[in-house]
């Protein structure tokens, strides 16, 4: 068996096992002790079964949301880094997250949730914002003749990021205090969905994105060598870049709509995985997707137990892990 095949059949299932274990254990742990026996005891009436409600209403949706968001952002991070040939790229580099956040801010400021949209207003506006941002960056980058210029992509994305971030601050400045608090809370990210509906709503979008990702791995390897080299080896560089950019943006937009912008996953997980398995994207991409789920669910577990009885925003935990990790990476390389 060749080494690639061997690694694929050993490494990826190993990550899968780890993730499965984490997802299995996480809902059983929390700031409130619960009895698994009671949780699955169907003789107890639902309204009497606090343990079951904690498990099925509070924790399980939260773990599932964490798994979805974590895997999606990690995978999108891998794709972005390959596309931009830069290990410091994140799913948020090209402005998708700022555009998504602006959509959410607009929904809050305009009280769109008071319309018929109801609770779906903010996620819908958020996703809409992400798609608008993606479209703008895409058209700016494809105005260069022929393919997608990654240089223009980066410039356009970073510029749009800055511009949208400024608009977000502007919106926050204009709204009244109650809404200001809502915008500030939303920006911290929140996995406590307490319902399966938002999860089910984002599954189709994330599913499409992950399917598109699955087409890319070996192509991503070649793209990282350079457009000319990749083209010389038979890669349709323009199409590959388009698929990579659009699918990564779709994935990021869906993830942010579900739980708000949670940072650091899209950069820590790809790096950690590469440290463990090398840079072949055929292994990095599936491994990072799996590990991303385990990583975010674990961070959320820490966030909801470490300062019991209150909870930390999960974005703080990912930052506290991500920051020192990068310092360590830098020191190691130096």
């Amino acid at each position, binding site marked *: 068996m060749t080494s690639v095949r061997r690694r694929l059949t050993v490494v990826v299932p190993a990550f899968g096992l780890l993730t499965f274990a984490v997802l299995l254990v996480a809902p059983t742990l929390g700031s409130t002790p619960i009895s698994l026996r009671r949780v699955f005891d169907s003789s107890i009436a639902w*309204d009497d079964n606090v343990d079951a*409600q904690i498990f099925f209403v*509070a924790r399980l949706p939260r773990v599932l949301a964490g798994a979805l968001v974590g895997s999606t952002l990690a995978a999108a991070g891998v794709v972005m880094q390959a596309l931009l040939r830069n290990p410091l790229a994140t799913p948020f580099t090209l402005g998708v997250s700022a555009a998504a956040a602006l959509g959410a801010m607009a929904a809050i400021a305009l*009280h769109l949730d008071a319309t018929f949209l*109801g*609770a779906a207003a903010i996620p819908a506006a958020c996703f809409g914002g992400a798609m608008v941002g993606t479209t703008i960056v895409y058209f700016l980058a494809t105005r260069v003749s022929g393919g997608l210029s990654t240089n223009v992509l980066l410039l356009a994305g970073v510029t749009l990021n800055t511009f949208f971030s400024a608009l977000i601050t502007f919106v926050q400045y204009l709204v009244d205090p109650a809404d200001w608090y*809502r915008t500030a809370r939303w920006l911290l990210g929140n996995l406590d969905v*307490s319902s399966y509906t938002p999860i089910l709503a984002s599954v189709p979008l994330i599913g499409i994105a992950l399917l598109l990702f699955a087409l890319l791995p070996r192509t991503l390897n070649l793209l990282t060598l350079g457009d000319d080299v990749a083209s010389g080896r038979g890669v349709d560089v323009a199409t590959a870049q388009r698929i990579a950019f659009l699918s990564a943006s779709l994935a990021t937009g869906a993830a942010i709509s579900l739980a708000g912008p949670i940072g650091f996953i899209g950069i820590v997980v790809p790096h950690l995985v590469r440290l463990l398995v090398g840079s072949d994207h055929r292994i990095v991409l599936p491994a990072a997707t799996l590990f991303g789920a385990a990583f975010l669910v674990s961070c959320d577990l820490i966030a909801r137990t470490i300062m019991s*009885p209150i909870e930390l925003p999960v974005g703080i935990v990912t930052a506290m892990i991500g920051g020192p990790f990068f310092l360590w990476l830098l020191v190691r390389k130096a």
Partner: protein
Amino acid sequence: MNGCPLSAIGLRRCLTVAVFVAIYGLWTGHSIQAQKPRVITLIPALTEMLFAIGAGDQVIAVSSYDEDPPQVRALPKVGALIDPDVERIIALRPTLVLLYGSQTDLMTQLSRASIPYYAYRHGGLGTVSVTIRELGVRTGHSREAESLASDIDRRLAALRQRTAALKKPRTLLVFGRERGSLRNIYASGGRGFLHDMLEAAGGVNVFAAVQAESVQASTEMILAQKPDVIIELRSTEIPAENQRAAELSSWKVLGSVPAVRSNRIHLLSGRWLVVPGPRVADGAEAFARVLHR
């Protein structure tokens, strides 16, 4: 001399009158020349207090977030906690500025311009009557202030006494959440005037042990705390009567929570509920009404 109108007695009377007239004239003249009080307030709660003690006519400008009483909406706005419009404030030549204790830059600027200020420090329920009394002194309405403050104190004391013997329900006091879902719920912690109001009304705050004014309450936390009553406070986006049931149906998913099972979820709306101002006793009494049905 024949025909002189002033007799000796008349002269003395005239002189007395003249002296009185002179004194009176000097006195009113002095008052007219003296500065009429001009008060700028950056704190909505304090604005309400001023109007409640009869000093409303002294207010010349308010913060960007002031809305009560309605007459302030026509007044100039000079910013708020984060963005006070220093130039405008000074240009309006106030005789007193009511600002937040943390606005140290503004205080420095006002001192330089020799404008007196009153630094408000946000605190628990007790701060309300203290502040009312202090404002009374500063605006020359001590009598009204004393009357209002002691009325508030009296009512709160009476409330505490009334509810002392009653069963004290464990209460979740929510002041923010996303519409139509249970995300981003913010509830009162064990500090602050909302917590004090709840306790005065004979309720036990489920988050009394948390040493903070606000707590982000996750669904697990709420399920674990098992509140008997949930009070939701809304000061903006107040739903219409026929929408209230729909609004509150978001809580149904937490079926094991006693408040949900016994349908003791109450939506109280109005800005006056969330402002530590002259209507706190009204607020506490409103809490008591829903807690002790």
